[in-house]
């Protein structure tokens, strides 16, 4: 066991899988020689050579499209998009090919690839560096989307993603890349894709979060410790396919649902969760399901970002509101 940051845990997962499986290759803009602008792939080129770890031209359609071709011809590519906001030029490949190749060929060609991308706000970054684009992947049939919130999950999910027979989008909450450390087993282990984690049992209310918002939510709960609100906290971990069973079972028990997300408001993962709670747990609802999200605005540049960012205060505020809701 070693104490690792989330970033280091991903690096370890990559290293371990590359060691074990020669077909794993890693590439992206600056991902080779210098190990990526965040250094997630640091050390890999030195260890595994330039054929398996390399820099690409600045061309996201090529990065994803080449990964698809490689996956079809026997490799397991782990491609990096430098920031999620730059995935758009590669989105055509993700949607029209990666997500569809298996179905298109009725099973003949799978696309076992991972597309990694740091995402999310709070780092006082330039334009296009702070978005939370989960919806754009979760809305597309054929894709998987995972987002770890801890070093342990990061390693386990990355290993599961690399071994998955289908394309996995791996969004990395860069705000907590180095925020804290956790004991992470040295050996290989997997965190199942498609399974949420009940972080804390509770009876009074179901709170769902993921990625960097898990931490904010936990801070909010800390703040509310004396308030006697018995929260069941769920970390989605996988956004697609979503583990509705775990969430809805919880909602049926608690009667209350809050979803915390740093996405813009409309058409976020929260809206699908709330809709499902309606469809499948309507009679259990003791209050309208609520969400804490950004606004339907372009993510502001750093000097205005705080207006948009979801923080522990706002989460705590809404938890109280939901707890106090009476019909």
């Amino acid at each position, binding site marked *: 066991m070693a104490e690792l940051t989330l970033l280091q845990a991903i690096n370890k997962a990559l290293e371990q899988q590359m060691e074990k499986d020669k077909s794993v290759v890693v590439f992206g803009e600056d991902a080779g020689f210098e190990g990526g602008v965040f250094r997630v792939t640091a050390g890999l080129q030195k260890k595994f050579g330039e054929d398996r770890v390399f820099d690409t031209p600045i061309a996201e*359609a090529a990065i994803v499209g080449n990964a698809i*071709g490689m*996956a079809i011809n026997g*490799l397991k590519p782990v491609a990096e998009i430098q920031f999620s906001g730059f995935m758009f*030029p590669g989105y055509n*490949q993700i949607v029209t090919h990666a997500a569809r190749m298996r179905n298109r060929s009725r099973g003949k*060609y799978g696309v076992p690839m991972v597309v990694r991308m740091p995402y999310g706000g709070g780092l006082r970054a330039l334009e296009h560096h702070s978005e939370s684009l989960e919806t754009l992947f979760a809305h597309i049939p054929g894709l998987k989307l995972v987002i770890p919130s801890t070093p342990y999950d990061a390693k386990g999910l990355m290993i599961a993603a690399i071994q998955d027979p289908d394309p996995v989008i791996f969004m990395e909450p860069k705000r907590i890349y180095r925020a804290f450390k956790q004991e992470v087993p040295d050996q290989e282990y997997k965190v199942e894709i498609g399974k949420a984690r009940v972080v804390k049992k509770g009876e009074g209310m179901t709170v769902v979060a993921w990625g960097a918002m898990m931490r904010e939510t936990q801070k909010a709960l800390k703040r509310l410790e004396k308030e006697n609100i018995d929260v069941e906290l769920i970390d989605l971990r996988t956004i697609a396919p979503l583990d509705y069973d775990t969430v809805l079972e919880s909602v049926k028990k608690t009667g209350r649902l809050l979803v915390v997300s740093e996405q813009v408001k409309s058409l976020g993962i929260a809206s699908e969760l709330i809709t499902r709670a309606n469809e499948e747990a309507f009679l259990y609802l003791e209050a309208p399901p609520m969400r804490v999200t950004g606004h339907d605005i372009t993510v502001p540049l750093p000097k205005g970002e705080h207006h948009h960012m979801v923080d522990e205060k706002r989460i705590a505020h809404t938890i109280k509101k939901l707890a106090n809701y009476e019909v």
Partner: protein
Amino acid sequence: MILTSFDPLKKEQFQVLDKDGKVVNKDYEPKIDDDTLIHMYKTMSLARVADIKALQYQRQGRMLTFAPVQGQEAAQIGPMAALDKKDWLVPAFREAAAMLYKGVTLEQSYLYWYGNERGSQFDEGVNVLPVNVPIGSQINHASGVAYASKIQKQDAVALAYIGDGGTSHGEFHEGMNFAAVYNAPLITIVQNNQYAISTPRAKQTKSETIAQKAVAYGIPGIQVDGNDVLAMYAVVKEARERALKGDGPTLIEAFTYRLGPHTTSDDPTIYRKDEEVEEWKTKDPLIRFRKYLTNKKLWNKDKEEALQEEYKKLVNDTFKKVEASGLVELDDVFKYNYAEMPRDLQKQKEAYEAYLKESEEN
């Protein structure tokens, strides 16, 4: 070396057979054994018959939209004959002839255009990617397939097709550039058939040839008479050797013409003149190749008649089989979205089945 002898910037075009089937470039006449020559001709013929028939079926309302190959058979069969079985074909959407040669069955091909995904479930060992509709994107797949082949030492190349229109797309640029940087064993053939739907080649790009776009990637580019099956064969053979040696991609412009409509929903009379089509008919790749084979005593009128009979029947029988396949089953549209069906999707399917049952009962 063909690739260094025909400079697109000087508007040189590589040709072996002229339109009368005469060898005009003896030095470059490829050595192909007789069986292969005949197999090439036969596949071109089958593709042609399948094409003409499909158009008829479509006009009868029995076939859906499809993209005819007519006129471009040489640009497809020459290259395929120059490949090895383990090489990959990465088509755009107008490569039914190439796909046939590489092992996609006529039934699969028809089934695809009939609107059934089973038509892209190619047989084991057939290294062909499915028809690719989003223009340009296949170049990146081909580059990736080629790169994988290279680092896994498979000794195989990837050959991608794209249209003249497709070269305007960003994905063409990114794929060619990526492959060039890493010397991926890629061969890209641009079938310049002079139009992208109604848009003429001159409105697509200001470069005088498509081949010269290779300069941007630091790779060889060559314009070839795309109606000359031997020239297409010879140039691909050489590009393949280069690729396998580790020298990287080649860009080949096959100068050709689409004799039919863009697809069966298209009316080409809106945007092109009859005379132009008639002129190109005189350069028909099948006629030219048939003359060559006839000169070589490998072919004659009787054989031709018998072949036509055989293929008409084959095509008819195949289409009937495809027609009889009916609709796609519900299972099929759910089952292949993931290797393993996610629980929520399973539930969606069950809910839908329950609805079907319920609504049947009412």
